[in-house]
């Protein structure tokens, strides 16, 4: 009897702990400006009919961004840089990151675009590094966030709103 009770208690503890962890982690992502209000918009769009919406969009974003970053790396590797192409890709990346609310990537993109407008190869390369860095940071953060969410769901707890 008591053993069973204990177990359910720990489980409840585990869930609430996980929940707290998730809330804290999400808050930290906002505090550190990895995410902005737009990410909340995404989360609002997720409901019973569409339970994996955020994960889907973000995965698409990861896929798309990696492609774009690759393209950019290639474009900047050329002897003569096609700034139009760079501009196009940066614009894409900026658009998607702003839609997701990944604001640090978006900001890095703005700086990138400015460099590309100035046709400043060195600046572009630096910006690319910056974008890559921000991207990998936020990717890690988001993956951790999703992992926490999955753990919470697996533990049977509802996602905090």
């Amino acid at each position, binding site marked *: 009897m008591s053993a069973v009770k204990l177990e359910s208690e720990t489980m409840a503890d585990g869930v609430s702990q996980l929940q707290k962890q998730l809330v804290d982690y999400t808050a930290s992502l906002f505090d550190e400006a990895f995410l902005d209000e737009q990410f909340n918009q995404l989360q609002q769009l997720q409901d019973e009919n569409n339970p994996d919406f955020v994960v889907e*969009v973000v995965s698409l974003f990861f896929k798309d961004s990696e492609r774009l970053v690759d393209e950019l790396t290639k474009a900047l590797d050329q002897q003569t840089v096609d700034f139009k192409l760079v501009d196009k890709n940066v614009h894409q990346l900026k658009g998607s990151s702003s839609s997701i609310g990944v604001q640090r990537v978006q900001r890095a993109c703005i700086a990138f675009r400015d460099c590309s407008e100035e046709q400043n190869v060195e600046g572009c390369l630096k910006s690319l590094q910056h974008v890559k860095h921000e991207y990998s940071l936020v990717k890690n953060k988001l993956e951790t966030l999703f992992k926490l969410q999955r753990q919470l769901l697996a533990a049977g707890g509802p996602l905090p709103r």
Partner: protein
Amino acid sequence: METDNIEDMDMEVLPSMWPEDIGADAGKQFNIDKPGQDQDMLEEANAVRLLREELDILSKQRQEVELKKLEILEEHRFEEESYGGDKRPISILDEVYDIWLDIAPKKHDVVFRARKLRLKLRKHSKRLERQSSPVEELSQILKRADNFLHFVLQNAPVVIGHQDIIGRTDVEIFTGAGVKESQDFKKEVLEKGLPAKREITFETPLFGSKTFLIYVEPVFSKAGETIGINYMGMDVTDQVRKREKMAKLREEIAVQKAKETELNKTIHITEETMRAKQMLATMSHEIRSPLSGVVSMAEILTTTKLDREQRQLLDVMLSSGDLVLQLINDILDLSKVESGVMKLEATKFRPREVVKHVLQTAAASLQKVLTLEGHVAEDVPVEVIGDVLRIRQILTNLISNAIKFTPEGKVGIRLYVVSDPSLDEGERCPQKLNADQSTVSENGLKEDADQEGFHGEGPYQNHSLNDDPRTPAKSEVPMDADQEEEPQTTTVWLRCDVYDTGIGIPENALPSLFKRYMQVSADHARKYGGTGLGLAICKQLVELMGGQLTVSSQEHCGSTFTFVLPYKVSTSPDHSDDPDEVVDMANHDAATDEVAESFFQFQPRTLGSLFSSNGSSRTQKLLPHKIGFSGSHKLNGFSQNSYTFPQNDIIPEEMASVENGCSAIDVAETLSEPESSASHIPNHNCETPAHADKRGQDDTNNKFQDSRNTDSSYHAEPSREVSVAAKIREPLGTCKRQEKSDADSESTSSKIPKSISKPKILLVEDNKINVMVTQNMMKRLGHSIDVVNNGIEAVRAVQHCSYNLILMDVHMPVMDGLQTTRIIRSFEETGNWDAAEKAGIELTVPSQDALQNGHGYTPSGNRIPIIAMTANAFSESADECFASGMDSFVPKPITFQKIKERLEQYLPD
């Protein structure tokens, strides 16, 4: 012995080791110390003697060296400080005695030379005299105390020949002001008994003006009385000149330095200002984004159910928000202009449309009983080149200013051509164009049939129609050919008056009127609000474009702001490459409206719904016709012409649009026949041969004419009519916040279910993620949407299917949102896809189908609301969106609220 040897060795080594100039001291040391040390030694006397001898030799050597050194120093000194530092009062007589013994370096330069000279003098001129000591001789000479020169210094011969001088007084030798001065100086020294120096300039016969440093010292007798003076002059002309030059140089350097610091300061200040301005621009931009968020959220809030108090609070919030937003926009503009960031664009635009549009916008948000009118003179070109956005900004600013300060009466714009000193009459000719053609229909029914059909050709008609529009077509043909050869562009100066019957501006306020943050008085600021930046911006913009903004005003009667700007007018017929142009040309109705002298009027109470256009000045006077809007022109023309009753002013909005809408179809149908037979065909028949070649260059001609010749084109007319009516409703709905908030909240809620009744929405967006997010949001709002990825696909989608709303990304590959919108608008207005074809989009539907398609959905409102989704929230891009025919824009990223708001606003209920 050993020690002796050592000592000897030491002694022998020593002299060579000692530096010669310290020899004396060293010697003394030995003289005293050595004997003391070696007293015990027997042989030491010998050594001492040896040492003494050595010492003697040494000291002799030293003296010689010292003398040599002195000599060298002396030479050197004489050169360097030729006249410096002789301050001790010593007479030469004293000097003479010890001249060989103790040479004081400070004074001996003079004395030394004096000695030499004396020797020379003796040789030369005193041979006969008995040999006596120089001292005696000198004393004798001096005792005479006359003015005669008895000897001269070595430097003197350079200035004056030797022989000329001896035995003469210096008064005889020199001339000029210096003579008297030197005499006075000498007297002064004699009286005072103290030596003195002075620089005096003399005129010499050989060398012109020479400056001498004169040293005069009194000579005393043994009794101590002054018996004469020694007088020495040294030519220091070069030194003086150098000194003066130096002084001048120093002065220049000082000035330069001062200038430099001044410049540095200025540069620093300028840089600081620039940085501050840049910073201001950046900050304003940063502030604007969140602020517009606040304001738009507040706007949305007004659509929700609110009680009276809440609404009041919200109204205050909105108006303050708007004001701050306006202020920031103004600051941003101003700092852009001032920091030189503002770039002007040169695009073709139609001045009439700009005037019309500005008035229409102003009328839409008008909250008082005012008549807005616009006059565009007939000689204003149809199309000019300039920065339309800025010009529109200036006009809007001036108009809203005028409206603000006009409690009742009229506010209007007058646009006409003025001559510029740099322009002669000939250059202005091409704008005399086209004129007098108010509408197609008019021309069709009146005698001007021959010109019709050219309206759509834009610049081309500048050539063809110009001078006398009533000339029969045949006589026009050769003129066309002639004018083709004209230069490609000319400049035309357009003067624009914005006048009002408002409170006017007191004279004393006029000078500060264009200064920023200046309003006529604090009272005005309180009463009328505003940032006080508007006029400053207008002025800056006008000046940036090479024009001038002036104002004249009479208190209590009104003000007139006038700006004159140069515009380029393209007279080149070759413009078919430009897709924009194609759109414009395809839009023949717009063209026809532009052609004549125009008069627009927005009457009070109708608030922009009505606007009468008095087209062709001369012909129309007899038959004033009334139109609901630019587009309804033709139909109204028809109806009036057919019923022939003059119908003038105000028709309430609703009536007008309804009437237009209803009458549109039947009028068009009944009248299309006479029109096409009476006006078109003859016209084309006679023009076609003449323009056969031109069609090659510009196939819009063809298309235009073709489309005109088909019946289907007339079906597009009524559809345009309706769109106009829709246009009228829209500003009222959107701009009149007051009304909106007054409207019962039930009405807004009733809107929503209606909009859910399956409106067709098209999303044009290339970014997958954005598509996904937007799609989802729309799904949440209960809409399913079609998605295409670029402009061309969008055009195709519109060809195939009729949409109730289009959400359009602005920045897209292949074809951007602006161009896409223009193509869709052009289709809506012309009923054909020529513009699309021009842009290289193959028609997937036969044009006839498309037209029928268009015809099919026309009555339900054929102007599809197009909402731009824009990434950069610059006001420019918003303007661009509107200029391209978009109805609204949503800044990215798209949020639930924003999209919801737009849907409610634009989906038909």
